[in-house]
Each structure stands twice: as structure tokens, then as C-alpha cells.
């Protein structure tokens, strides 16, 4: 259990960025927090949920990000301190409500944390949250290190309270999931009372009349900018008149500082580090732009900061002169992928006309040579014993036997990996949460144009609740043809087993009634079949039968995740390969178990010419025993 609430003012800790954010929210006196799991944001709500009972907080995993934002907004409307947390794609989901919310404004302080993933370290995109601040006309804050992750979260509540609107705080994977040292401030002691004052003293929350509200909203931004001009989170370090000025924000601050240090340029290059990145504090930025003629902007993915600064520089040109800008627009730095110290070293060297480091040392040459053979590519795969591998094995073989070119529309979860050989490349489309079912619903209506390929959608149990219900209802109402396979592994597995509406507990650990997926689907009018993915034969037969029918059908395949607390470290079966029975390379299957099924619990022993079990990796699920055509893989139940 987290000890974040116990430590005293002035104590120093090594914290993950997300933990620092939690401490900042606690120091601000957060009362209510809501979110939907998504890497790299999940630990924020998880940690707050652990502390909820003791600190009298209300914390929930909401069904999706839009509802999370609405739940948090309600707390703000009632005068409490509210927090909503999501990864960037979740902000897309919440955006519809956010646009209305930013127009009506808030009552109690309200902060929205969006976690971006530049470089897509744990995502299927590297989408940006920053442009949302501009689109929604709300202030944007970006912490530049671990201490700031805490301090700026605390201040974000203060700012929201001061202007009466929601504040967006953007973090990134390299801050949220990295760790660094943080010194704590005091925790507040106070009683909070919730009351929605819709009559005197507040009035109803409406975006009407639109023009007046919109003017009010923009006035709030002007108030924010006035505070930004003196914010301690915007800092300059370097000589008074540097040869070049770096303007940066977020984790790029640390990369920029390091690049300047590596090149030994602390006396020649200045760094303006901005914590308040939209709207920009005009006067402050203008003052620093005046220092140098060469301006290098260091940021990740799109040139958001670059565009804002250039607009500002154009307005101030008469006062500060014409600047030379270096960044992404002219192609010096890429608009794709994450930043690192080396990329800043290269860019800065270019700006100052410094020679680039030696092209390739003999060491680099040799180590690259060795790595070609010595470091074979390690692509991601399903864990040993993962039910998804078994599910996709059955779906894939059934689709091949059906032979009409059927395909699977994928969704977001660990099972997205089925777009790769890990899941026999069964998934052919992969977009946002719930989209697999929506796309399959569309494919299922294309029969009138001659399309006869069966359309299958897959989704996980948490995704089902998040955003599969509307497209499933759409398919039923519009009489589409599709099979939805719900890969129910008993929790939001990919992000660390957070509960969802189908779980018997909620975020704070309270017992709740499970929302029953098959019952919902039946009530909607779908044909529902239940199955166990570890019964490979049975699942394939069931699925083949479903392929013969039309209409909307749902197959719920239930088996807990191999890493779930109830399964982890416990083997169901003791697996062994009968070395006499395995025919090795001469078998007609051509090593089906390792070549195609490819579970990390199986290895091919080339010398001995047979497969064998890797006893460290194998979880004893028993599925490979039903894959082997000669029955050479045996399973023995543990006594």
C-alpha cells in the first residue's frame, strides 16, 4: 500500500512521476478522482484508490474517460477539489464533454491530467494532448521534472480555483513512468462539504448564452496568462546574451540541459524552460526571445510550441528583431517519435555550426556486427499461458477452414498483438476502443454489394463496457451480420488488473454486483454462446457453427489472464514433451508447436530434434497438448 500520505513536509523520496502527481493532488486537497486505465497514466488513480478510505476521498475507475470527466466535474460543481485522469486517446473520448465543460466553467478546483506517449512506447499511436488546450480554450501546464510533477499538480488546482475553469496538465511516459527525487510539502487539514449551488451564489451550469459564456471563458484565459507571466515554473538558465536560446518544456527540459552540458556550452547557450505552455505568457517569452538571434525549440512529436512561439515572435518582431528559428518546421528535428539527449546534441551542434561527433568508432562497428547475430530481434508476444493465444488459434483455424476470407476487426488491449504473428496475424483492422465492433457492424452490411467475407470483432471485457455497447446495439438495430468475440480475462489486464463493471469489486475495494456481459448481450437480442479458450477443439467447433449462421452473435471466451493474481505462479498442469513420440523436423506438422503456436513456454531443441518445455516460462495451461498432432505433449494434473 502506498505510503505517500504518511511522509512529512520536507522529506525526500524517490518517486515515479505518477506518484509525484498523486502527492501533488493530495497536497492540493483533492476530494474526488476518476479515470479510466491507460498506460502511462494508470498508477495515478490506482494509488489514490489505495488511499481513499483513510483520507476520505472518493476515487473510481469509471466506465470510460468521458464518464470519468463527468464524475469529476460533478465534484467540482459541488465545490470540491476534483481530478480526472486519462491517457491521451482517452482525452479524445472525453473531448465532447470537455468542450461543454470548458464553456460552463467549474466551481471547485478541477484538474484534468492527460498522459501522452511520444514514441508510442505503450500505445498504438503517439497522439498529442497539447492541441486540446487550444481547441478547448483551457490553460495547459507541463511539468519538466519529478519535483515539478508534484508542485505543478498542486498549483494546477490553485490555478483552476482562481480562474474558475478546468486546467489541463500534460505528462508523458518518460515522466510518468520514470522515477526521480521529490521533496514533499505539507498536506492540508480541512473538512470538505459538497453542495451544488444552482440557485443563489452559483446558478445553473450552462454554456448559454453562448457568446457571453465564450467571452467569459476567454477572460479566464487572460487571467491565467497574467499568472503565467510570474510563474516559478517558467525559468531561464544561461548567460544574459547567449549565442543560441533553447526553448523547451516537459521532459525535454532534462534532455536539453544534458545536451548543453555534454557539449560544454553552459556559457554559450541559454535554456528557457516553460511550464505554462498555453496560452504562452507573451511578455515573458518576448523578453527571453530578445536575448538571442538563434532560437532552437526542443519538443516531442508535433511542432506545437514552435508554432506558438513563432506567432508570438512575428507579433514582437518590431521590438525584438527577426529571429532564426530551428526546430521541426525546417526539418532539423523529426515530428515523429520521442526526444532524447543525443537528438538535442545533434540539433544544437547544427545550430552553432559545431562538428558532429565521429561517425563510427571501431568499437561501434564491432558491436553492431556482433549484435546482428548476437541480439536476435525480440518481438512482443502473448505471455506463456495467455488465453488470447489459444483464442486466436481457434478463431484463426476456424476462419481458414471456413475459407471465405473471413477476418477479425481488432480492438485495444493485449489482444491487439493478434495483428502480429503472436496471434497468427488474425487481426486485420486496429483502431480505437470499441472500433472493432463498429467497423464489423459496417462490414456486415456490405452484402448488398457482393461482400461475402464473414466479419468478426474482438474486444476485451473492460473494452466491452468502455465503448462496445453502442456499436453492438447499432449492429442489432441495423440487422448487421457479425460475430463479436468477447475475450473475457477477468479484469483490465493490460494496464494491471484494474476492476471494471464486470468485476466483483470497485476501485476502492468495495464489493459490488458484477454487470453480466452475456446477460446484457442476450437482453439486446444477440445470440450468445459461452466458451473456454483453453478448450481449443470445442471453441473451434463452436466458432465454425457460428460462422454458418447470420445475424449478430456473441461468443464470450472466459479464462483469467495468465498474470492475474489468482493464477500467477501457479501451474495447472505439469507439461512434458515425450521425446520418443515427438517426430521433430520429420513430422508432417513441421514443428507446429514452436513454429506457429510459438508459446514462450516451448522451445525447439535443435540438437535433440524435438520440442521441450521451458520449465521457467511454462505456466502449465495445457493448451499445447491439444495442438500437437501426434499427442507428444503430455499434461499431468498437479496433485
Amino acid at each position, binding site marked *: 500500500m502506498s505510503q505517500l500520505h504518511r511522509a512529512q513536509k520536507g522529506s525526500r523520496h*524517490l518517486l515515479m512521476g505518477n506518484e509525484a502527481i498523486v502527492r501533488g493532488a493530495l497536497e492540493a486537497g483533492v476530494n474526488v478522482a476518476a479515470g479510466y486505465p491507460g498506460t502511462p497514466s494508470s498508477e495515478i488513480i490506482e494509488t489514490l484508490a489505495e488511499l481513499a478510505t483513510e483520507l476520505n476521498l472518493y476515487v473510481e475507475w469509471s466506465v470510460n474517460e468521458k464518464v470519468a470527466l463527468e464524475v469529476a466535474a460533478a465534484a467540482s460543481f459541488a465545490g470540491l477539489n476534483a481530478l480526472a485522469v486519462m491517457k491521451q486517446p482517452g482525452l479524445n473520448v472525453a473531448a465532447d464533454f470537455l468542450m461543454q465543460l470548458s464553456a460552463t466553467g467549474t466551481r471547485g478546483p478541477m484538474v484534468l491530467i492527460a498522459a501522452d506517449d511520444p514514441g508510442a512506447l505503450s500505445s498504438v499511436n503517439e497522439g498529442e494532448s497539447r492541441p486540446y488546450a487550444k481547441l478547448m480554450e483551457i490553460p495547459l501546464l507541463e511539468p519538466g521534472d519529478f519535483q515539478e510533477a508534484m508542485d505543478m499538480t498542486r498549483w494546477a488546482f490553485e490555478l483552476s480555483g482562481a480562474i474558475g475553469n478546468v486546467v489541463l496538465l500534460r505528462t508523458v511516459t518518460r515522466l510518468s513512468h520514470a522515477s526521480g527525487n521529490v521533496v514533499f510539502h505539507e498536506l492540508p487539514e480541512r473538512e470538505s462539504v459538497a453542495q451544488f449551488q444552482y440557485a443563489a451564489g452559483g446558478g445553473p451550469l450552462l454554456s448559454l448564452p453562448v457568446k457571453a459564456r465564450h467571452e467569459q471563458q476567454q477572460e479566464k484565459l487572460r487571467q491565467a496568462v497574467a499568472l503565467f507571466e510570474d510563474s516559478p515554473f517558467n525559468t531561464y538558465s544561461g548567460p544574459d546574451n547567449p549565442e543560441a536560446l533553447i526553448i523547451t518544456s516537459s521532459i525535454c527540459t532534462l534532455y536539453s540541459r544534458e545536451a548543453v552540458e555534454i557539449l560544454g556550452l553552459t556559457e554559450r547557450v541559454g535554456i528557457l524552460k516553460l511550464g505554462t505552455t498555453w496560452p504562452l505568457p507573451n511578455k515573458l517569452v518576448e523578453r527571453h526571445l530578445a536575448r538571442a538571434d538563434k532560437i532552437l525549440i526542443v519538443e516531442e512529436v508535433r511542432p506545437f510550441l514552435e508554432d506558438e512561439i513563432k506567432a508570438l515572435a512575428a507579433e514582437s518582431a518590431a521590438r525584438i528583431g527577426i529571429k532564426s528559428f530551428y526546430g521541426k518546421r525546417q526539418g532539423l528535428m523529426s515530428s515523429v517519435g520521442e526526444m532524447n539527449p543525443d537528438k538535442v546534441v545533434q540539433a544544437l551542434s547544427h545550430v552553432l555550426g559545431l562538428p558532429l561527433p565521429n561517425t563510427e568508432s571501431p568499437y561501434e562497428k564491432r558491436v553492431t556486427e556482433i*549484435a546482428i547475430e*548476437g541480439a536476435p530481434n525480440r518481438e512482443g508476444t502473448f505471455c506463456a499461458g495467455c488465453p488470447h493465444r489459444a483464442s486466436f488459434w481457434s478463431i484463426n483455424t476456424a476462419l481458414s477452414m471456413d475459407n471465405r476470407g473471413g477476418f477479425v476487426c481488432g480492438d485495444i488491449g493485449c489482444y491487439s498483438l493478434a495483428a502480429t504473428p503472436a496471434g497468427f496475424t488474425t487481426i486485420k483492422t486496429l483502431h480505437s476502443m470499441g472500433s472493432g465492433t463498429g467497423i464489423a457492424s459496417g462490414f456486415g452490411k456490405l452484402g448488398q454489394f457482393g461482400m461475402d467475407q464473414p466479419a468478426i470483432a474482438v474486444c476485451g471485457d473492460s473494452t466491452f463496457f468502455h465503448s462496445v455497447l453502442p456499436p453492438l446495439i447499432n449492429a442489432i438495430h441495423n440487422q448487421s451480420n457479425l460475430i463479436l468475440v468477447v475475450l473475457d480475462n477477468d479484469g483490465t489486464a*493490460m494496464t494491471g488488473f484494474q476492476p471494471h463493471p464486470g468485476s466483483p469489486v470497485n476501485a476502492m475495494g468495495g464489493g459490488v454486483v458484477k454487470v453480466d456481459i452475456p446477460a446484457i448481450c442476450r437482453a439486446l437480442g444477440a445470440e450468445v454462446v459461452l466458451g473456454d479458450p483453453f478448450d481449443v477443439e470445442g471453441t473451434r467447433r463452436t466458432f465454425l457453427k457460428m460462422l454458418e449462421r447470420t445475424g449478430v452473435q456473441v461468443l464470450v471466451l472466459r479464462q483469467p489472464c495468465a498474470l492475474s493474481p489468482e493464477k500467477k505462479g501457479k501451474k495447472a498442469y505439469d507439461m512434458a514433451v515425450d521425446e520418443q513420440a515427438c517426430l521433430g523436423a520429420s513430422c508432417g506438422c513441421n514443428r507446429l508447436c514452436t513454429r506457429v503456436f510459438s508459446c514462450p513456454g516451448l522451445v525447439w531443441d535443435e540438437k535433440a530434434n524435438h520440442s521441450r518445455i521451458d520449465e521457467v516460462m511454462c505456466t502449465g495451461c495445457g493448451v499445447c497438448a491439444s495442438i500437437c498432432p501426434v499427442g507428444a505433449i503430455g499434461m499431468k494434473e498437479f496433485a
Partner: protein
Amino acid sequence: MSAFALKHDPYNLIIAGVGGQGNVMTSRTIGNMLSELGLFVTIGDTFGASQRGGSVMSHLRISVTACYSPQIPKGGAHMVVSMEPSETIRVLRDYGNPAVQVITNTRPLYPIAVIAGRASYPNSAKMEKWIGEISAKTWYLNATAEAMKIGPPALGNVIMAGALAGTGELPLQRDVFASIIATRYPPEQARQNLAAYDFGARYVAAAAI
């Protein structure tokens, strides 16, 4: 401010392995041991679903004076502690240099491409020869096998942490480790952790003689 002088500042340590081997826990334990002494520590981890079964590494930046970025510059590692031999080579390709020191587990975990027959995995003798060739100093140990003599294979990480302490490269103190472990695990697991840590430290100390 810490009273410890570091051999390099920042000292750049990489802890590498395969998703699921326990890298994150090890890097946090080592990070906490150093942070307790007043040092600045930054840990850059990569974790999440896409890392499961894939290559993972944690970058530790240790400094007396400042918070460094969560990514070590290319070619900038001082020490690599790796739970898997091919991952050792992968890390050295990007972060190695002629002065780098390496502690490597010798137990291979085959990538899926190797299991499927799309790629091959060189034998141990070849791997160890290569790793030795591209590092200034190398310690090899089968931490997985040794861990299984003490308890679960995941203790291999703790053996590696002990081995790192045994090199004397960083101010890692056994009593600090013991106190961190005591808050995290019940007595029997804490005892196994200490046994694994001590094995690693002794192994490296013996190798030095």
C-alpha cells in the same frame, strides 16, 4: 547532499532483461538504496503491455549534484546489469563503449522468432566470448539457476543486484537493502531475498580474487 563521491557523475547504469523478468522492481530497489544515501537518482523505465516478453531496460542516472534525464546518451553506459545474454549485446550495441563493465546472466530466454525458427540464437560459448570482447570487465553467472536453488527464478534479479553491490562500483549497502526488503516482503521472502543478494555479492567478490 550526499557524502559519497561517485566514480563518474552522473553514473550511468543500465538494468536490462526481458519483460516479466522483474527489471522494474530491481531498478527501483537499487534506485531506492542510492536515493536513501542522499544521491540524486533518475530511473527511466519502459514498461506496459508492449514490453511483455519484449526487450526491457531501465536507465539509472546517479548523481551527487543534479537530476539527470531518464535516457542515457548513446554509448554512455558505465555498467550494464543484464538478466539475459542477448539483451546484454542489444544494450551494448546502443549504450556500450570500450570502458563499459558488464554483469550478465548466462541463462538465455529465446525470442519468439528463435522459437519459431525464423532466427537463430548463438550458443553460450559464442555469446560469452562476444560479450567479453565488447566490455572492459565482465562477470558471467547463471543467476536463474542459482535463484532456483534459493526460491523462485525471479530471485535472479536480486542475485544480480547483489552482484552489482559486490563490484563496489556504487555505494550499495547491505543494511539499506535489508531494510527496504523488510518493508516489502513477509519474513520468509525477505530471508530468500537476502540470501540471493548475498550470493550475488559473494560470487563477484570471489571472482575478483
